């Protein structure tokens, strides 16, 4: 979707506001929300792509007015309600509906530490997917496409020429997976775009932007 979340290349957004000695969270509620979001993911009612897409659906004016974690709150409530883990009435009242079943949390305190210390599990890379259509060193062009759903092909990089620099292996496809339309595993490549290909003469001739591209975003050039 051509939403405001896709902001690469937009201008006049103001100066970068740098905070010295920034805390991890600026308020307790941000920390609790972050933890809830993580713990609830283990119900496997949605995936990380769904969660991202849900926040992209926040209307533009609200998106900009909200802080980062306010967007998380809205997104999480939508996911909870849509997946029927809670009802909107329950969210509004803060009380469990009478007679609704009590579940057993899928994540207990002693199970948290291993989530952060275990060696990285290269699950995606072991996926079997479509054979790579492109080779390292090959010139490619990104599709000019404007899907109404979730995509990781930023607007500023559509219909542009680039070069495959690296094959990252196989990953699930967010465009379908975000909407539970299948994992569609396929190769992801690091594609180098000359800054001038993207932005014209105002960019420095030697600069570049590198974007990870799913196979389906590319065509031979």
């Amino acid at each position, binding site marked *: 979707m051509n939403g405001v979340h896709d*902001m690469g290349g*937009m201008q006049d957004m103001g100066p970068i506001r740098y905070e010295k000695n920034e805390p991890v969270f600026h308020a307790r509620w941000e*920390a609790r929300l972050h933890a*809830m979001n993580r713990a609830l993911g283990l119900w496997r009612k949605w995936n990380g792509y769904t969660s991202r897409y849900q926040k992209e659906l926040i209307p533009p004016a609200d998106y900009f007015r909200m802080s980062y974690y306010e967007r998380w709150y809205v997104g999480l409530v939508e996911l909870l309600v849509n997946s029927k883990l809670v009802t909107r009435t329950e969210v509004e009242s803060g009380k469990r509906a009478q007679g609704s079943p009590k579940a057993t949390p899928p994540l207990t*305190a002693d199970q948290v530490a291993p989530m952060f210390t275990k060696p990285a599990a290269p699950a995606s890379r072991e996926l079997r997917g479509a054979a790579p259509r492109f080779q390292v060193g090959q010139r490619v062009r990104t599709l000019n496409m404007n899907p109404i759903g979730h995509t990781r092909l930023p607007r500023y990089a559509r219909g542009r020429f680039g070069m495959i620099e690296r094959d990252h292996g196989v990953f699930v496809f967010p465009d379908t997976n975000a909407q539970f339309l299948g994992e569609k595993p396929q190769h992801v490549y690091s594609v180098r775009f000359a800054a001038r290909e993207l932005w014209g003469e105002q960019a420095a001739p030697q*600069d570049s932007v590198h974007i990870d591209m799913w196979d389906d975003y590319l065509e031979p050039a």
Partner: protein
Amino acid sequence: MVDTTRRDFLTAAVTTAGTAAAHNLAHAEDHDHDHAHQAVPSDPTLRVKSLESLLVEKGLVDRAALDVLVDTYEHKLGPRNGARVVARAWVDPAYKQRLLADADAAIAEIGFGGQQGEHMIVLENTPKVQNLVVCTLCSCYPWAVLGLPPVWYKSAPYRSRAVIDPRGVLREFGMDLAEDVEVRVWDSTADLRYLVLPERPPGTENLTEEALAALVTRDTMIGVAKVMPREGGQP
């Protein structure tokens, strides 16, 4: 009104793939009042507290598990982890080679991994190459080695400009690059996570690995600052 309907359709589409979407669309108008509540939460503290009680009451989350998660985010993750990786790469050329070739394995050697650090790529800065990491679409960031991202990294000014005007962004961070330096921007919009391996500053030949790690700041590993020979003010 048109917008609301479209939004409801999208919301329906994301949650109920296929046939159910049409059903929800038919009821889109019923949802209009809900979207009023979707605006900025009026008091996030109360709303989140209320949501937590509800989820605990329903047995959907365990409060003690939330406590451990918060403690982990606040005290176990963070740029000190990434700094240890960088310092090791500076003192151990074989490690650096492994890190650039297979970052996941090399980072796991030091004991870091887990969520948002599963598919790491390490980018080496040189006197002629400055790497800069951004996520224009959201906030992708290598939690395992840097912790959670700072607000500026997730903000519109940085996300919008890092790709179109990286040199201007770097100037704002106090870095004036020579014209012959090549800037490589990495828009981490997929599942790969990027860590910049900054240049080791001159005059640090006699420092221990630990002392070197103390020089490495978060910003140098995002690519918006250079490592200073003495411990500096930036995080």
